[in-house]
């Protein structure tokens, strides 16, 4: 047998049908659903009198629209948001799928809830009508975002019409320096490849620095594979993965666990398998990074200065001019001189317990800068509960943060948490697009520790200078 990559192996295990032209029906093991991209799909089923083929494999949770303030027990004030969540409530019930409603303690961001509940397992195919489905690749699951038509297709047939992507390897060798996190790795990679560099590929992240990451860190890395344009990001499962999965509600137990483990241990890229593209970064070279522009590829080490349009070529020159104007920045300005109005810590990129611990470590016993608006939004109700148990909630409140309920929150401004015009935010989320966090809002993407540091000092800060 010819050597295979991890992606090849998972792909091959899920092809239900292959046409002569190479178009495949890929079987889907887990279908995650949220309120924004599913209503039209369920409506489509109703109109064509179709059912959900595998309701037991389908898991829904509202996250994008839900407010993160305690008053949400009284319902969602925004009418359209309320209708969307109500539609999901109704569809979940009518079609008999697993559901975590807004006020269930297990509710949270779909990409945090899936792994937390043990729905996401190595070697699976996982899809969701959300581009950050890439997150689940951290388990060695082939996971990617789909559009609403495809959501309907998966609901009806439990398959997706797919053509195979190419294989790309991103290797991070060696050890990370102090202050450098999984977020810095994934952003540094995008800085290297650009937002289109992964288009047409599935990325496998490997190397010592990736192996050394916790599952939380690996999820952060894979989460932003889509920001590099890749269909999915993957990390081969290992003991760290098994330890995370073991004992979770929907993970296999007993003899099933042993059988699963046997298969999972075959899920790695064969030694002589070939990749179509290879990127290698030295872990030691990666610095704490920050975005200065309006594309996730606009990444620089925190020690750098704001670039100038002349530093770029082609269509990017105009894009940079536009970005600097939008961001209100001047070329040559030190990144650490950029003053911040707001800090947002949370999202499917950085809303897990490890992220909150990293923040607590920075802010414990300190106070955020006067006038700073700073919020911490756990990725799920269970993350919040765990943080409370560990005393983190108290640390956050004492430092002056708002300590919220679970949801997508300010990552995408579909709910009450938004930036106002020209408000500048250090954010642990994944996109710094124009208007992403609110109309004319200005986003700098950073790691949780760097966001925490900015909350204390009031400007973008090199976490290494704070120690």
């Amino acid at each position, binding site marked *: 047998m010819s050597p295979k990559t991890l992606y090849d192996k998972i792909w091959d295990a899920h092809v*239900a049908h292959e046409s002569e032209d190479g178009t495949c029906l890929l079987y889907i093991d887990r279908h995650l659903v949220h309120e924004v991209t599913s209503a039209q799909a369920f409506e489509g089923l109703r109109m064509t009198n179709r059912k959900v083929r595998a309701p037991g494999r389908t898991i829904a949770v509202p996250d994008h629209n839900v407010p993160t303030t305690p008053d949400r027990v009284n319902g969602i004030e925004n009418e359209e948001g309320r*209708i969307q969540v109500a539609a999901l409530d109704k569809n979940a019930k009518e079609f008999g799928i697993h559901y975590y409603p807004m006020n269930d303690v297990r509710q949270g961001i779909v990409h945090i809830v899936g792994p937390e509940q043990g729905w996401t397992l190595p070697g699976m195919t996982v899809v969701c009508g959300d581009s950050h489905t890439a997150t689940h690749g951290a388990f060695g699951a082939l996971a990617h975002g*789909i*559009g609403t038509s495809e959501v309907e297709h998966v609901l009806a*047939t439990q398959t997706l*019409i797919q053509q195979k992507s190419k294989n790309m390897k991103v290797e991070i060798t060696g050890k990370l320096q102090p202050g450098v996190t999984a977020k810095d790795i994934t952003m540094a990679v995008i800085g290297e490849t650009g937002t289109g560099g992964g288009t047409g590929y599935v990325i496998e992240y490997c190397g010592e620095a990736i192996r050394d990451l916790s599952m939380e860190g690996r999820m952060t890395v894979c989460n932003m594979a889509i920001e590099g344009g890749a269909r999915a990001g993957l990390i081969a499962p290992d003991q760290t993965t098994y330890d995370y999965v073991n004992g979770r509600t929907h993970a296999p137990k007993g003899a099933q666990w042993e059988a699963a483990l046997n298969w999972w241990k075959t899920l790695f890229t064969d030694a002589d398998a070939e990749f179509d593209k290879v990127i290698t970064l030295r872990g030691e070279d990666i610095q704490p990074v920050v975005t200065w522009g309006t594309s996730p590829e606009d990444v620089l080490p925190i020690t750098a200065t704001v670039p100038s349009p002349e530093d770029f070529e082609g*269509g990017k020159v105009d894009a940079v001019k536009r970005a600097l104007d939008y961001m209100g920045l001047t070329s040559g300005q030190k990144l650490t001189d950029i003053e911040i109005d707001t800090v947002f810590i949370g999202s499917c990129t950085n809303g897990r317990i490890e992220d909150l611990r990293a923040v607590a470590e920075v802010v414990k016993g300190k106070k955020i800068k006067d006038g700073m608006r700073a919020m911490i939004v756990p990725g799920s109700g269970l993350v919040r509960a765990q943080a409370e148990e560990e005393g983190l909630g108290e640390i956050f409140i004492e430092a002056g943060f708002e300590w919220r309920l679970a949801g997508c929150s300010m990552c*995408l401004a579909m709910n009450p948490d938004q930036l106002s*015009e020209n408000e500048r935010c250090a954010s642990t989320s994944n996109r710094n697009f*124009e208007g992403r966090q609110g109309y004319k809002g200005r986003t700098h993407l950073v790691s949780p520790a760097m966001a925490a540091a900015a909350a204390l000092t009031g400007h973008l800060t090199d976490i290494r200078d704070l120690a």
Partner: protein
Amino acid sequence: MDKFEKLQGIAAPMPLVNIDTDMIIPKIHLKSIKRTGFGKNLFDEMRYNRDGTEIPDFVLNKPQYRDAEIIVAGDNFGCGSSREHAPWAIADFGVKCVVSTSFADIFFNNCFKNGILPIVLPQEQIDVLMADAEKGANARMTVDLVAQEITTSDGEVITFNVDAFKKHCLLEGLDDIGLTMEKVTAIDTFEDKAAQARPWV
């Protein structure tokens, strides 16, 4: 789904690179539970001032491009979110074809599900089409999916590639789900085999 065979129409130039899904349709407009009506908010923040008045410099607000049916775009068009509201907005506005040097993967797939033809061409040919689009309303391009050709207003012919299955679906206006349902036996068989091999899933 509407069929796509041949289109003759005005092409609007949008040379900006990395036009993302938040630019195409800001999330504040994703709250509808319908598939229609998004066209008025296409490129919302580039197209309108906060008070709802039009920004006259924006290409689709210029008189010669208001009825554009084709967009010639900069690299990496449609990057970002999986939201199908982006192609819904594009289709609802009346654009049926987008041409660029590259598209984000999910957006690219979403287009085909909505009767929109995304075409990938090398930079040199995009430059030719961009220059043609810059001429305005009198420069109408022709996009022929059957022949896989774009003809500029000057008669220059540029051929393009398209996946055979996707082409077939667009030409016939086929519903993917219906097509897959015809293969239900293969899915049943796979499910049985997978249940044996990986019972824990």
